[in-house]
């Protein structure tokens, strides 16, 4: 379990001090996937850097399974992908992965096969592996970054904007690798601005603003606190649909484009709402369920 207790961190000196983290406390359970969301400059990367031992907090404490975050036993189980990949300019993709395989304590005799497997997992082909990293596009760098972070199947995975700059296929591949890690019981901390991706892979999100943890939302399981269902109907039938839903005891809030947001997202409520619309002869164009994390970014946040 990852434990963060009252962590504060300030940068700068004298009159130009920036409080990047201000008394952040949270716990991440073993096997949980936690999303860190918040505006730019909120302190998310600082929190990740503290969790990895790159920064020392001014106050508070961090631990992983009761050990200091920079303990080498923890590092041996950790995979990390920074927002900007750090690498030697003359390094090829294959050499980069081989270097991290060895640094991660991988068997030197298995380096070649491990590199090939890691590249396959993120859809990097052999010719790309032979090329120097400085010739890679941003999306390719993100893919190889995820490949190096998941070498040796770490059970602690820290990812900082892993899908930033990736094309749709890359985003899907990166998502699948995170889901793989989740399936095998790894604890994942994901910092991302790609809210639909966060929603798809995370069990829980914490919203950080001005260095403070302002909200926490559970996205999966019975305690899911933010999941919302929405039904889209033809715009001209939106009023009739609202009335039908109200009459059926399924209150819904009308939004633009014929979208009706249901008060509850559980299966029974959605099923009852669709049935009510069918009985009222209102065509249902789309039913979707989402956590609507975007609302957290609006001034005042969502209630």
């Amino acid at each position, binding site marked *: 379990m990852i434990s963060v207790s009252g962590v504060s961190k300030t*940068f700068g000196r004298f009159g130009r001090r*920036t409080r*990047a983290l201000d008394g952040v406390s949270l716990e991440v359970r073993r096997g949980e996937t936690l999303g860190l969301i918040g505006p*730019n*400059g*909120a*302190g*998310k*990367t*600082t929190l990740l*850097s503290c969790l*990895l*031992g*790159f*920064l*020392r907090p001014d106050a508070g404490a961090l631990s992983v399974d009761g050990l200091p975050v920079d303990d*080498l*036993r923890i*590092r*041996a189980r*950790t*995979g*990390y992908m*920074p*927002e*900007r*990949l*750090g*690498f*030697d*300019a*003359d390094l090829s993709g294959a050499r980069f992965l081989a*270097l*991290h395989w060895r*640094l*991660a*304590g991988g068997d030197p005799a298995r380096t070649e096969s491990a590199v090939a497997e890691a590249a396959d997992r993120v859809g990097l082909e052999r010719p790309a592996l032979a090329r120097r990293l400085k010739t890679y596009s941003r999306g390719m760098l993100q893919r190889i970054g995820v490949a*190096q972070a998941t070498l040796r199947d770490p059970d602690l995975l*820290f990812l900082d904007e892993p899908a930033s700059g990736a094309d749709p296929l890359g985003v899907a591949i990166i998502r699948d690798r995170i889901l793989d890690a989740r399936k095998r019981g790894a604890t994942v901390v994901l910092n991302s601005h790609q809210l639909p991706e966060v929603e798809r892979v995370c069990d829980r999100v914490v919203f950080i603003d001005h260095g403070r943890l302002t909200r926490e939302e559970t996205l999966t399981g019975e305690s899911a606190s933010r999941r919302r269902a929405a039904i889209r109907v033809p715009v001209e039938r939106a009023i009739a649909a609202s009335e039908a839903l109200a009459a059926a005891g399924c209150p819904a809030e009308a939004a633009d484009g014929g979208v009706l947001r249901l008060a509850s997202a559980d299966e029974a409520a959605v099923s009852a709402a669709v049935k009510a619309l069918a009985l009222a002869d209102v065509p249902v164009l789309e039913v979707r369920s989402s956590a609507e994390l975007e609302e957290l970014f609006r001034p005042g946040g969502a209630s």
Partner: protein
Amino acid sequence: MARRLVRQKFGSPIVVALLALLALLIAFGAAGDGARGRAFQTASLAMIVLGAGAVSRDVSTGAVQMILARPLSRTDYLLGRWLGVLAAFGVFLAVAAALVVLFSVAVLPAFHAGPEPLSVPGLLRGGAGALLDGLLFSASLLCLSTFLPGYGDLVAYFLVVVGLGSLGGLGGALNRPALVNAARVARENLMPDPDWNALLAGQTSSLEPVGRWVLAVTALLLLAALIFRRREFAYGHD
């Protein structure tokens, strides 16, 4: 880590070209003096390209965070970088020595340049002395590289050299023996310069400069480890 640094350095065509030029200069000079070691005194210049930015380069590219997220202690990382610098310097010295031999026995006689006869013990002493000088130089650069950005380690090193020289000169000009002494003591302890050639040839038995050299190398490495263990790495405050 050591292997990675050697690859980084010899992977750069500019570094290789500069080292090749320096090795040729050493070979010409050493062949002329029978490889008695004087020409090897310039070999420490190779440390400028091999030792500068050993840590700060990794910090500026962000590679250090990715490496330190692995099960590798900061001390091991630092030691690996330093051993890599020394290994690269060793390779350079071996190439320079091979060129000295080549020039002495084949190239210069072919041009009737009349070189001094090659002295293998002189060649070995020259190489060993250069390696020991480079060891202290690299420890100084490594220590400075743990907290200065880019090639600030090299700039700071030369500022210290020039500063100590100026302090002594200033003390002399102002007729202040205390200032002259302070500059001398600082130079002798921070940058001890034992006459390795004479020591290895058994021409002198004074071990005092060697003791200062050992102390300086040890102190610089310990200081580097201390600074690097305390150092923080951030890339933005997001």
